[in-house]
């Protein structure tokens, strides 16, 4: 018994506005992209014949295929770095840090930037990475290099550095959540059964945090795959991932091509999510 009767018409009506909103503004546009990506002919209209021409032209261009691969590569790199970093940080904050006051303070320091603009945080890396940027100034000051290194700004290294700072929180958050749900008695029970701390982690803690790890990896994967703003901010126009390609085609009014890339992006991401959902049930985390 609660304020809502299970299966009552009221619960349907309460769900309608949100469902309609998401259908109209997410599902329909996505299906539209799929449709447009098959449009052929000269005129851009709903009467266009459906063909595979757009896809064939896209896939016959080696440069575009390379871009697909490098986008995946970038996502994999970020997943590896933020996964390791995020797990270490989550484990430290939840398990190793004894003082509740420090835990709160460090946790806030970790989370607060997440509530500020991603764009501004990406831009904040620009003065760091330039030829005369803070990193080079520091390196020269420390005597580690005599001439400024140009490898940071307008480079994938610089983009990666910024993305790590932006997305580690996504990898760590779900792990923090899962670690908090593990009763301390489980760890203790394992220890009284003669498991050493590393074994306790490997056999008990890690398997129980695995759903959090997977969710975190999915979030990082999705964000990196679709990230074009960081790439544009730090990479200038010298580097591009799939997201930037969508934008380029869009700005060049090649809407059908933009749709093809968008669909491709969507398929990649759906495949990633589907793979992850086979491992864990996301609903358990949301609940």
């Amino acid at each position, binding site marked *: *018994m609660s304020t809502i009767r299970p299966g009552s018409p009221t619960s349907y009506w309460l769900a309608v506005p949100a469902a309609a909103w998401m259908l109209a503004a997410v599902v329909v546009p996505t299906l539209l992209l799929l449709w447009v990506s098959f449009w052929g002919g000269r005129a851009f209209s709903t009467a266009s014949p459906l063909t595979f021409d757009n896809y064939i032209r896209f896939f016959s261009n080696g440069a575009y295929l390379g871009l697909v691969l490098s986008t995946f590569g970038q996502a994999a790199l970020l997943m590896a770095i933020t996964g390791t970093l995020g797990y270490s940080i989550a484990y430290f904050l939840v398990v190793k840090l004894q003082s509740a006051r420090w835990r709160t303070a460090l946790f806030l320091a970790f989370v607060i930037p997440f509530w500020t603009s991603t764009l501004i945080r990406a831009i904040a890396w620009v003065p760091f990475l330039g030829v005369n940027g803070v990193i080079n100034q520091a390196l020269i000051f420390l005597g580690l290099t005599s001439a400024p290194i140009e490898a940071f700004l307008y480079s994938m290294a610089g983009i990666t550095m910024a993305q790590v700072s932006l997305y580690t929180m996504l990898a760590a958050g779900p792990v923090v959540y899962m670690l908090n749900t593990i009763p301390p008695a489980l760890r203790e029970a394992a220890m009284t059964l003669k498991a050493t701390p590393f074994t306790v982690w490997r056999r008990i803690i890690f398997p129980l945090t695995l759903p959090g790890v997977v969710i975190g990896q999915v979030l990082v994967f999705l964000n990196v795959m679709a990230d074009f703003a960081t790439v544009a901010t730090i990479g200038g126009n010298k580097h591009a991932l799939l997201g930037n390609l969508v934008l380029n085609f869009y700005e060049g009014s090649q809407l059908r091509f933009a749709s093809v890339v968008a669909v491709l992006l969507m398929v990649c991401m759906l495949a990633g999510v589907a793979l992850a959902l086979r491992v864990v049930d996301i609903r358990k985390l949301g609940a």
Partner: protein
Amino acid sequence: MTQVTIAKAEAPAAAPRRAVRRLDHRTRSRITAWMLGGITLLFLLYQWLPILTLGLLSFSGPTGGTTFPMNGVSLHWYRELWDASIMNDFKPPLARSFLLALACSATTVVLAVMAAQAVRGRFRGNGLFFYLLLLGIMAPGILVGFGFALLMRLMGIELSWDTTAFVTHVTWTLPFGFLTMLAVFNRFDARLEEAALTLGASRLTTFRRVTLPIVLPGVMGAGLFGFSLSYDEYPRSLFTTGADLTLPLAVMAQLDRQLTPELYAIGTTTTAFSFIAIGIFTFAFWVLRRRVQARKP
């Protein structure tokens, strides 16, 4: 009696042995803690240093460039920002972003509470409904923005920050608010509602008088998500805003034209603005929770 004497005689001999052994596993555990702690602190430094540098450089002198040295300390770039020409005036975009964020926050709160309450009703297809809402988080902004812009174009609807951008923003903020409310309702003790219902309150009254006041801190959380996610939204805005830009778009446009400390000033301002928003919401959250808890006993 004999045992007691033996025990006493042995006690001093046992103490040093224990100290040696204790070092063993404790030190190992401490080393792990220090290593992980080091990683955490280094990352926090790594995460905060650019933000703090941005803030610092925004106060550089009139001849200061986009990096160190600052050539003095001044409010020059903030003044520049205030006296801006039409070309790079950030005030109207700021106002638009703020209004848009408020609207998104309100919409998110209402729709998220309704949606979460609906899921509590366990209607048929609520699983599908859950994933439909989750889609808003999973689907990248670039796809939603591009797709929606395309749809508007085919329907012949003009893009504008207060119509089309608002619609796409809510698809992004609503799922976060929804998940927040689901988590809140999960921890909510439904027996409180049962108590009210057995006391003769109707379902609606019970929801208004019992449920809502108790979950209000969570509602604030959903509101904060709605505000801050919309305020900082970039990819969806890029495709659906039209001619009058929101703040992130204006910032990006300025970055494309020229990187000046003025941009740092606007970055610092919006970041400070975000902090203030978080502060206000956190304070409200804290006050509300205290009020609910104070009423409990």
